[in-house]
């Protein structure tokens, strides 16, 4: 019995030694742990399509990444000004990651300043719980800014084609070619709305919304205001234009003044018809709503950039019994205008409104170009759908804007 126990003990001891021999030796207290395999093939290159101040570091993962007891936890990315160092840490990424964008700022006073046109050296350190292993030093590399953003080439091509189309149709229009544009109910209702205000002897309220003078919607709205103001001057109706932005107010005053002058009624122009209210969104709403309820305008025109105030304004106008025409390029606000207003210009129709109102060949030419561009986009969308369905996914990549 004792002999059997001794044999069993010896057998267990032998098995334990065998298992121990197959595993990597655990670090003994006070002894350095065995390092993992280091990352290899560290490649550094300047980040593309930027103003500089950035470098991209890539590497081949350590052989111990995701395997064995020396499992990698993170990779530290170190940078130095000479190959010998001293190296400082620029970033840390998790296991399985083999790419890091070392991006700094262009402010010399910033601790994260990254100087352009200066040599830098990099190395990547694989880190485990107990030890780490450094790659070879890569570099030198310099960060520098590019003069052309390659990633935006599809945009450039599209803009050039569209510019060509616009100029072509403007030229056609100048030569007297007939350009058909479909009628827009909202635009055709403008004259009717001004006539109604004249008959009722009530004012017309024109609201730009919260846009600034640099917004395309506001720029388009200036042109429409000019046409409306001219009609208003001819019909001897009054106009109220409360403004959210002081620059918009200044331009709108000039637009209305010129329209009255063109209509031959400069004496009818009142400077206080276009005035500044406030730059606080809901205070502006309160002021305009108050004007609606006190003045009871016959017609409200909301043309420009609108946000949460769109429904507050349009519903108050509906309650006041005004005819309402709205137009905005904010997709989220269009449904509110559609339900609360009599006519709504949807998106691009706002930009087209000035051309519709004036029927000038030069402006109609650009509308035609827009129609052709939309047709081209529809054809490309169908083609993209077919390409993706029938195994040519690369087709979509030709149109991808990367930066």
């Amino acid at each position: 019995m004792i002999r059997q126990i001794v044999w069993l003990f010896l057998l267990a001891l032998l098995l334990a030694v065998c298992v121990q021999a197959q595993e990597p030796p655990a670090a003994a207290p006070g002894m350095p742990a065995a390092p993992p395999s280091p990352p290899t093939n560290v490649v550094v290159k300047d980040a593309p399509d930027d103003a500089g101040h950035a470098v991209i570091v890539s590497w081949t993962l350590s052989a111990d990444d995701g395997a064995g007891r020396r499992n990698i936890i993170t990779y530290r990315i170190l940078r130095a000004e000479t190959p010998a160092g001293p190296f400082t840490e620029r970033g840390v990424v998790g296991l399985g990651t083999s790419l890091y964008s070392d991006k700094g700022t262009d402010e010399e006073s910033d601790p994260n300043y990254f100087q352009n046109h200066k040599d830098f050296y990099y190395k990547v350190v694989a880190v485990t719980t107990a030890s780490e292993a450094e790659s070879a030093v890569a570099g030198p590399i310099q960060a520098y800014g590019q003069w052309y953003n390659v990633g935006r080439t599809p945009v450039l091509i599209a803009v050039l084609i569209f510019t060509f189309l616009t100029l072509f149709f403007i030229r056609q229009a100048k030569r007297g070619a007939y350009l058909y544009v479909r009628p827009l109910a909202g635009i055709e209702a403008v004259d009717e709305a001004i006539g109604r205000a004249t008959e009722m002897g009530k004012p017309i309220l024109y609201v730009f919304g919260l846009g600034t003078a640099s917004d395309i919607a506001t720029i388009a709205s200036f042109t429409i205001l000019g046409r409306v103001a001219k009609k208003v001057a001819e019909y001897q109706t009054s106009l109220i234009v409360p403004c959210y932005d002081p620059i918009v107010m200044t331009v709108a005053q000039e637009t209305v003044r010129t329209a009255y002058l063109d209509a031959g009624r400069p004496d009818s122009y009142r400077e206080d018809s276009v005035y500044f209210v406030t730059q606080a969104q809901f205070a502006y709403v309160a002021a305009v709503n108050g004007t609606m309820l006190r003045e009871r305008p016959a017609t409200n025109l909301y043309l420009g950039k609108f946000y949460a105030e769109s429904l507050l304004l349009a519903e108050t106008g509906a309650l006041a019994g005004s005819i309402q025409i709205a137009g905005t390029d904010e997709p989220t606000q269009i449904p509110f205008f559609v339900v609360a207003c009599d006519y709504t210009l949807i998106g691009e129709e706002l930009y087209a409104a000035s051309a519709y109102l004036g029927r000038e060949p030069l402006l109609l030419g650009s509308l035609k170009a827009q129609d052709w561009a939309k047709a081209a986009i529809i054809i490309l969308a169908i083609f993209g759908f077919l390409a993706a369905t029938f195994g040519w996914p690369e087709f979509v990549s030709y149109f991808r804007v990367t930066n």
Partner: protein
Amino acid sequence: MKKEIPLLIVLICGLFMAIQFFVPNEASQFLYRYALDWVIVIGVFALALGIWSFTKVSYDKISRRSENWPYAVVALIGLFGMIFSGFGFFGGMESYMYKHLFQFIVVPIQATMFALLAFFITSAAYRAFRARSALATVLLATALIVMLRFNPFLGPLGDPIGAAASWILNVPNMAAKRAIVIGIGLGMVATALKVILGIERGYMGKD
């Protein structure tokens, strides 16, 4: 010259901003930021014009004793009260008076205005969802499905209604939205071109 110089400025600035979009270099970024700084500077000066305009319109109402002129008095007191309470000799923007005027008057009033939106949405929805025609009925049915997806009392109907609502939002709704956004994008480029080329001049006070 009165017309040509502004048009030339617009042409140069417009072309620069268009080209700048494709040039990521540091010099281009610097000029872009410089141009944006100019917008801020102009905005500050224009604000003075705006305050002058507001004061003049309100003062005229008071002096002519126009209808509802007391509102103009309140507006002027509000404007100058906030301006003066923010000045240094009252303790600046950290002063007791300025902070309390802002926190306990301006913020609640603005929140109240925003809260009105809930009631306006209800009244607008009532008008929009009346089934007066075939299309209005489709709109009503669609709106019901989309709104019902958040209803916790649907029981076994919850899943199919949720799936139908997701499909409506992700397929027909998204398609329409994208079409509108593409149209807006093209319209923006066309309008920008017209402004740069001097075809659209509404912003100069003359079209």
